[in-house]
């Protein structure tokens, strides 16, 4: 039985509680440095509240398997205390993201000496290539990594072609929330979409704006989601991507609510295929027309009373 300081509802935030819990678990359950297993890695700080997390992990595990490596310990998700006791034997720690993953990685490096990759889960073709090469070099599997990248990118291009046929030349507007839309813009350009604009809801980091400018993609800041969607309509967008939960019907455009977290690795192709299906059938669904019909009947009923 171990005690994890949490402060209840009186002190600190979700971050503080998470960080304190990690520290306690490492102190209590992860012994110090151990003899290294050269092709074993740990995955750190997975998002236990995200319903799609197993899908994201599956892609990471698949890519590592292609390198000839495997996951030894998932800190902390679906893990046993026995596995945690072997965390110090890994050759490398892989953070899920920068928020908690890097924090946990530093704690573990201090406790066990296991180095970590200063990159979060990759999203999209370029980031995944860079991540694979970095992991490969850290594990002294550089040649295997470059070979794997060549195979994966060939498969990526093949699958992409099917979606391209429905999307190339269509006008895209991206309404971006807080997350970096880099993977979206990269995928869109790979698909031959014309990225007409990226509308940010709130301020964006200068580095992100610079990257968009370099790619020739105009960026603006909208007052709110309605203004951004109105902008997309005015631009004649044929495909509009909006943050999770903000989808609206827009005449003449297919609207897609983006996943709340970027898809990992090459699973961005699932997004591409969804965009293609939406582009093939942009018409409004029957149930929405019926919702308007039902609303008009209710209105007529109320006004007659």
């Amino acid at each position, binding site marked *: 039985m171990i005690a994890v300081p949490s402060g209840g509802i009186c002190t600190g935030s979700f971050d503080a509680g998470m960080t304190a819990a990690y520290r306690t678990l490492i102190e209590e359950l992860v012994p110090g440095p151990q003899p290294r297993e050269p092709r074993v890695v740990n995955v750190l700080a997975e998002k236990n*509240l*995200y*319903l*799609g997390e197993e*899908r994201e992990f599956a892609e990471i595990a698949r890519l590592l398997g292609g390198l000839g490596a495997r996951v030894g310990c998932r800190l902390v998700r679906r893990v046993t205390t026995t596995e945690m006791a072997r965390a110090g034997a890994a050759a490398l720690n892989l953070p899920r993201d920068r928020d908690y993953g890097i924090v946990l990685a530093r704690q573990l490096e201090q406790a066990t000496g296991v180095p970590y990759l200063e990159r979060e889960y990759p999203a999209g073709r370029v980031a995944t290539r860079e991540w694979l090469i970095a992991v490969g070099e850290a594990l002294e599997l550089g040649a295997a990594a470059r070979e794997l990248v060549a195979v994966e990118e060939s498969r990526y291009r093949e699958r992409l072609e099917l979606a391209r046929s429905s999307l190339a030349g269509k006008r895209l507007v991206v309404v971006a929330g807080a997350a970096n839309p880099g993977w979206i813009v990269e995928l869109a350009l790979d698909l031959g979409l014309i990225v007409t604009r990226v509308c940010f809801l709130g301020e964006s980091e200068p580095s992100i704006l610079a990257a968009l400018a370099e790619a020739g993609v105009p960026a603006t800041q909208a007052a709110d989601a309605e203004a951004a969607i109105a902008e997309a309509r005015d631009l004649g967008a044929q495909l509009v991507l909006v943050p*999770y*939960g903000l*989808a609206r019907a827009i005449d003449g455009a*297919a609207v*897609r*609510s983006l*996943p*709340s977290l970027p898809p990992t690795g090459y699973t961005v192709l699932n997004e591409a*295929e*969804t*965009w293609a*299906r*939406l582009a*093939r*059938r942009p018409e409004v*669904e*029957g*149930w929405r027309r*019926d*919702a308007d*019909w*039902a609303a008009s*009947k209710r209105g007529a009923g109320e006004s007659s009373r």
Partner: protein
Amino acid sequence: MTLLPQALAGAVCAVEGVRGAVALLHGSTGCKFHLAALVEQQDPREVARAPLVGSVLQLYGQSRVPCTDIWAEDLVFGGEAKLEQALDTLLGDDSPEAAELVAVIASSPLAAIGDDLQGLIASARGRAARAGVRPIQVVAVDGGGLVGGAAEGFQRATRSLVREVARPDAPRRPETVNLLGLSVMHPRWSDDVAELRRMLRAIGVEVNAVLTAGATLDEIRRLGAADLNVVIHAEYGAGLARELGRLFHQPNVGAEGLAPIGLANSEAWLRAVGEALGLPSGRIAAALDGERSLVLRRMLPALSALDRTAPLKGRSAAIFGEAGPAAALATFLTEYLGIEVVLLGLDSNGAAALAQVRRLEELIGPVPSVKWRTDLTAVRDALAEARPNLVFGGSFERAAAADAGLPACCHVDFGYPLWHRTVLTERPVLGYRGTLALVEGVLNAAAGCSPERVI
């Protein structure tokens, strides 16, 4: 492995769907076993289980579809003696549960060797009459032999029944319709009959007879009394509609259209019946509005809620089943829910099936992959390649999808067999209430399989 419904199954289900009728299979126990299992699952009745061993007519504990138990030597020397014995046993049964009509259906090998069914039936009737037992109608029914699938077998058997049983002089019953092309093989058939009766009652129309799921012999006798024949599943009923048109000069609707699956198809079906009967347009419109409002009141809040977190539009689906229901479902998924159908696996074939698929493609465009009467290995491979978000199919397709690496949550029950699930509640496939059941299945599968939701 190929597991597709064949003509004999369609014929047996046509007869067994009629209350008071018994399909006597003149064939081997191998054919009998799976057909009786199908009938007992699809049309369960409160009867005592037959013994595992005993009378040659009832084997394996199955009380339905008695069988003459033909062996190899019977194929060489003829099976007449066994058929005579079976007929004498059935015709000599004077219990309250005894059949009013025995339909002799020859399985494929027996159809090929050409036993004189009509002669044997006539002799059996003669012996029964001399013995003074209650007269039971005996007919030879075309089982379809080796030709065609279940729909063809169903129509051929039903035509035989109609020719033998229906009276040419049945008094007319205005504003009544016959429902054609529904078999006890269709999943949830009794709930479907109840739903269609309810829908028709909403426009002031009663059902005269159903061919043949749950029909009585009296209904079949008075087939000619109805104002109109209404086809439910075109593959099972279009030919029957033409036959009844010839026999009783009755018009028909539904033979060219899609089955009443999904909201728009159900509305179109009901409207077509009302218009064909010449009902006042106000009566039809009021009924349609009322039915639609009831469905939308339940359905729209759930669709809107899921749409905020995990939209259906842009998802992909595979559909497995007979061409008619698959085509109707495909239009509903595409036009009403925004789900793209990327794979069709069709169990039926023939002109009626092709017509349904052509109709589908006129409405929604070509489907990327269409497989006709293929085996489960090919189903698995097609699913692995297409990787649809949702799979509509029966128990076999559910297993094939699992083999293809698709999650169990993406399966929505459709078609048959559905051996993996017991349903005790009313849950039609057709009509307005069928639409609610269908959307319920889609929403649960879509929500369960959606990785995008965050707590």
